[in-house]
């Protein structure tokens, strides 16, 4: 017969206070000093927010903060873009999470399945940011609220909707990434326009998938299968090209972007471009070919040794060396290029760290099985190395997102730069300077914090098997 020990007595709130605030004399002293101090600071913060703060500078200019000087008549493009992007990310995350959830479940591991409520709780900083926008909306100025609300709230809702893709039956999940890529391209082109020449990205995406899923398995001859695959891809590409030629509607280039929209877009584009570039640089730095290795190392060390702000200023001249003279690049194009090249160097070092940390036995096991170097890299090394560096990688993405505020000094009007216009307005000259700064700070924090939370979750999920 087994006897169970009596359950420990329940902890009262007094016990909690004793244990956590007054454990010994010095922790008691610290508590006595810090408690009133933090209460006082909270009081001052709330007082600033609700009583003394002159929030009109923010309140009146919410739309300006969101989309800057972008044409008001065309703002539907921006709002649709944000929503479509959010949908794309939602689908990507949703299908991915469902796939790994199933795998974990098959393995008998206990994992929680994501819910919308969970997503919103994870993204609480964004929800709080929306709350702040609502707080600023006064009853006499609802029109001013609609744009920013759609901007952030619409994005959040569409993201949650896309996340429902996790409910798709297993065999349809493979289309998850296809949908994600498609929506990303469409979302981009809703602003930049569906020109006849804009077929390339979708053409590549669908061409590649047609090539890989073409049902040719029943044919024996490999040349025939190859030819049929190629034909399928070609038909799809030509069809997409024809659709674009038929639509051929111009849009607005990215030179007119500004405000929070610009900040988000430039960061996102730079992240998406810098990641593969950084990966290639990391691999090149570990290459056995000396020329490749030396070039990659030199690039990484030079970029890492120069401040971003210097590079941004130099962007004009440096890019002038590599692009033909008659091509003029807008400030935003240059900014995106510089941010991409800058981040790629850091990402390369992060990836290299992950590659080095992987035990040698993993590669050897792959070699011993007769795998060629590319599949060893793709199937064995990179999945593990990249998982290991997710926190550092997201940290780099967050710092890239925040560093985009530096663009305001090269005459690109991003989220922080919008303040310049606001305080040039008659009513707000020298008024509400602290308030607009605080608002911008909260905006940056809301997005950065959401990214950080999502990365923690991603990390937990990918490590579920370890």
């Amino acid at each position: 017969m087994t006897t169970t020990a009596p359950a420990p007595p329940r902890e009262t709130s007094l016990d909690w206070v004793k244990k956590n605030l007054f454990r010994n004399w010095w922790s008691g002293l610290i508590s006595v000093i810090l408690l009133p101090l933090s209460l006082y600071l909270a009081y001052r913060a709330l007082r600033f927010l609700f009583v003394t703060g002159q929030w009109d500078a923010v309140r009146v200019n919410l739309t300006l903060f969101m989309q800057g000087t972008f044409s008001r008549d065309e703002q539907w493009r921006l709002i649709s873009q944000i929503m479509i992007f959010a949908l794309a990310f939602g689908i990507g995350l949703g299908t991915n999470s469902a796939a790994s959830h199933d795998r974990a479940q098959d393995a008998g591991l206990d994992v929680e399945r994501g819910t919308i409520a969970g997503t919103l709780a994870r993204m609480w900083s964004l929800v709080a940011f929306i709350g702040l926008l609502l707080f600023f909306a006064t009853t006499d100025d609802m029109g001013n609220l609609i744009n920013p609300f759609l901007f952030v709230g619409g994005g959040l809702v569409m993201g949650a909707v896309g996340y429902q893709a996790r409910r798709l039956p297993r065999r349809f999940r493979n289309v998850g990434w296809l949908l994600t890529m498609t929506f990303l391209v469409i979302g981009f082109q809703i602003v930049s326009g569906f020109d006849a020449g804009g077929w390339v990205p979708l053409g590549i995406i669908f061409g590649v998938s047609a090539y890989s899923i073409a049902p040719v398995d029943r044919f024996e001859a490999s040349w025939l299968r190859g030819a049929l695959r190629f034909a399928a891809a070609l038909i799809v590409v030509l069809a997409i090209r024809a659709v674009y030629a038929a639509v051929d509607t111009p849009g607005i280039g990215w030179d007119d972007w500004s405000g929070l929209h610009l900040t988000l877009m430039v960061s996102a584009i730079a992240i998406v471009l810098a990641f593969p570039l950084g990966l290639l640089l990391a691999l090149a730095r570990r290459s056995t070919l000396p020329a490749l290795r030396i070039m990659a190392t030199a690039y990484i060390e030079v970029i890492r040794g120069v401040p971003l702000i210097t590079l941004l200023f130099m962007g004009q001249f440096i890019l002038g060396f590599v692009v033909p003279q008659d091509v003029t690049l807008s400030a935003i194009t240059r900014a995106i290029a510089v941010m991409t090249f800058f981040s790629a160097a850091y990402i390369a070092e992060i990836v290299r760290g992950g590659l080095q940390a992987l035990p040698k036995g993993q590669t050897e096991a792959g070699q011993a099985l007769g795998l060629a170097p590319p599949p060893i890299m793709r199937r064995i090394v990179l999945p593990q190395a990249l998982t290991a560096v997710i926190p550092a990688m997201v940290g780099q993405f967050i710092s890239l997102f925040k560093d985009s505020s530096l663009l305001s000094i090269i005459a690109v009007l991003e989220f922080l730069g919008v303040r310049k216009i606001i305080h040039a307005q008659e009513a707000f000259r020298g008024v509400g300077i602290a308030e607009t700064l605080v608002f911008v700070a909260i905006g940056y924090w809301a997005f950065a914090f959401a990214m950080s939370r999502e990365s923690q979750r991603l990390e937990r999920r990918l490590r579920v098997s370890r």
Partner: protein
Amino acid sequence: MTNEQNQNVYSDATQAKGEAVIELVDVDKFFGDFQALADINMNVGLQEVIVVIGPSGSGKSTLIRCINRLEKHDRGRITVDGIELSDDIKNIQEIRRETGMVFQSFNLFPHLTVIDNITLAPRQVRHEAKNDAEDNAMALLERVGIPEQARKFPGQLSGGQQQRVAIARSLAMRPKVMLFDEPTSALDPEMIKEVLDVMVELAEGGMTMIVVTHEMGFARAVADRVVFMADGYIVEVGTPEHFFTNPQEDRTKLFLSQIL
């Protein structure tokens, strides 16, 4: 024992019975100035089980790692199934496809499930269809006695189970030769037997094997020949009975007195 008899034991054992699958001729290997393998001459016949023993640092692991080119030998010739090992990557991969290897630390891929671990190489290298590869993987898991673990991740398995998965993973490529690099050294004592049982079954099924191990019981029971190495040299080769009951060299006697 007379000199003549000695000679017989010796010459009997140095040569493989029948057709040689692996042949090493005058192989030397250096790590910097340190000579890891010295003047290695050895051959392994079809369906033969060779057990390599020796003190640590004697070059046993290096020897079998040279056979599938995880280490590059500096001098001499290594031939596997008629293919001579050269620097050509195609040639190396061809040899690696013919030789399975089981590591001391398992080296399973932790991010893949057991079945994905096993099917990865057949699908990538032999371009097997997914269903065929998985059917074969399940058959192999049956053979090593853990079909119920197919959908689990390596981290969820015991050491013995992991090593059995590693054996199944190597067998999935249908190798002609299996190389075992101290397969039971990282295992808790109670799990050693389950792995050795699989290896015994494999040997009885006619697999050609080179096994680096400290399991003398396994050597005695299964080995066709025992190779004793020290300081990079092959000191002595013999059938298990001669080797354990009547070793010729002083170095061998010393080693056996230390471990038995």
